[in-house]
């Protein structure tokens, strides 16, 4: 690394899974690393690091995004939801229930991202058809399941 650059810490305020958070972090930290390293929320996974696999998907202001493609600073003032935040009073979210019921989980690595993509979809569109579901999870790669069970699980989830 050339020159000794002085990094100015940045102050962030946002809500995380419904709770207000205030913290300071480094300006060159990705949202993914903020979640996993600073906040210990390791449900968000890192696969490709370049926006192709969707394992790092989280929800920012109701939209699914790749947290590997965002800097921490960009979420200032936003509402973030991670996989840790979708269970309700200690019960699994209906999507999570159905992923289990339909055998949509194998190694599990893609699942947090997959579920959050489905979560963003269902919050916008309660009864998506199969094409819409496929489009919504097109940015989430799964090397295990072949997608069929995942699509079934989503299709059968009623919020």
């Amino acid at each position, binding site marked *: 690394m050339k020159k000794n650059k002085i990094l100015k810490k940045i102050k962030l305020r946002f809500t995380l899974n419904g709770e207000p958070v205030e913290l300071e972090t480094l300006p060159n930290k*990705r949202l993914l690393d903020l979640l996993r390293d600073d906040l210990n929320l390791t449900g968000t996974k890192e696969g490709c690091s370049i926006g192709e696999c969707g394992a790092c998907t989280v929800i920012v202001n109701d939209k699914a995004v790749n947290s590997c*493609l965002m800097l921490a600073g*960009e979420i200032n003032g936003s509402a973030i939801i991670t996989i840790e935040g979708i269970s309700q009073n200690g019960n699994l979210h209906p999507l999570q229930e159905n992923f289990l019921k339909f055998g949509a989980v194998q190694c599990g690595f893609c699942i947090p991202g997959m579920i959050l993509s489905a979560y963003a979809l269902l919050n916008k569109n309660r009864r998506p058809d199969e094409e819409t579901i496929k489009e919504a999870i097109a*940015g989430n790669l799964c090397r295990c399941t072949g997608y069929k069970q995942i699509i079934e699980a989503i299709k059968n989830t009623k919020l």
Partner: protein
Amino acid sequence: MIPKLNYVAPLSLKRTLKILSENKKKAKILAGGTDILPGFHINSKRFRDIELLVDIKKIGELKLIKEFKDRVEIGACVTFSQICESDTFKKFFPLLVKSAETVGSVQIRNRATVVGNCVNNAPCADSVPPLLVYDAKIEIQSLKRKRVISLQKFLIKPYSTALKKNEVVTKIIIPKPDPDFKGDFYKLGRRRAVAISRISLALLLKKKAGIIDELRIASGAVTPIGARLHELEKFAKDKKADSSTFKELSILMGKKVLQITGLRWSSEYKLPVLQQVFYQLLEKVNEEE
């Protein structure tokens, strides 16, 4: 790994321009970030010298799509998702919507911006061919002046544009086309989602009594940067809109692209595909009433 750099998110355009003029060499604008962050990850030369990222997403006016009587404006932070959902764009610029729908994935479209797509100027930039056939213009602002240039002039060569270090693209301005234009956008990728285009084509056709009054053609991915094919457009003018003209045009298309790119290892399979999809696209658009 993100290199050592600082991050600021100014609240106004003025402040942004000030920061840029004070940090000319080292600062870079951050909008969607979907090109810059992967660029850091692969340690791309293009982004190695950045010391300061200037996030412009806190500037409200840059996030808007604005419709006027004769034109529509896309602010610098408007995402592909916004384009996909915009009734104005569906009505007046369906080719741009179609291309926006093919960009990356939902997650990418929620972040990536149309302006960023142009500023990055990758050969495969999906929104560029439609914007070119719609005669889009780019508005550029620096502390001292504002200038508007055509997108075509703005795009210089792969990954390079007419944008200077102290300038920001504030918006894309697209004139509403004559409603007699019919058109389509075509993209070929290796797979359906998160695919880099291998071939993309946009065309607009206006006929008068079966005669081609105006044909606009732009290509992406097969040419070094998105480009209008003016020679072909001129050739088509006042010819009959029929299969034999389209065949001639397709042959010309192959020749033209070969002339621009030179013979490549991929030419042997790519050119016939390009000619064929171009031909089919012409036929399809011609059949639309």
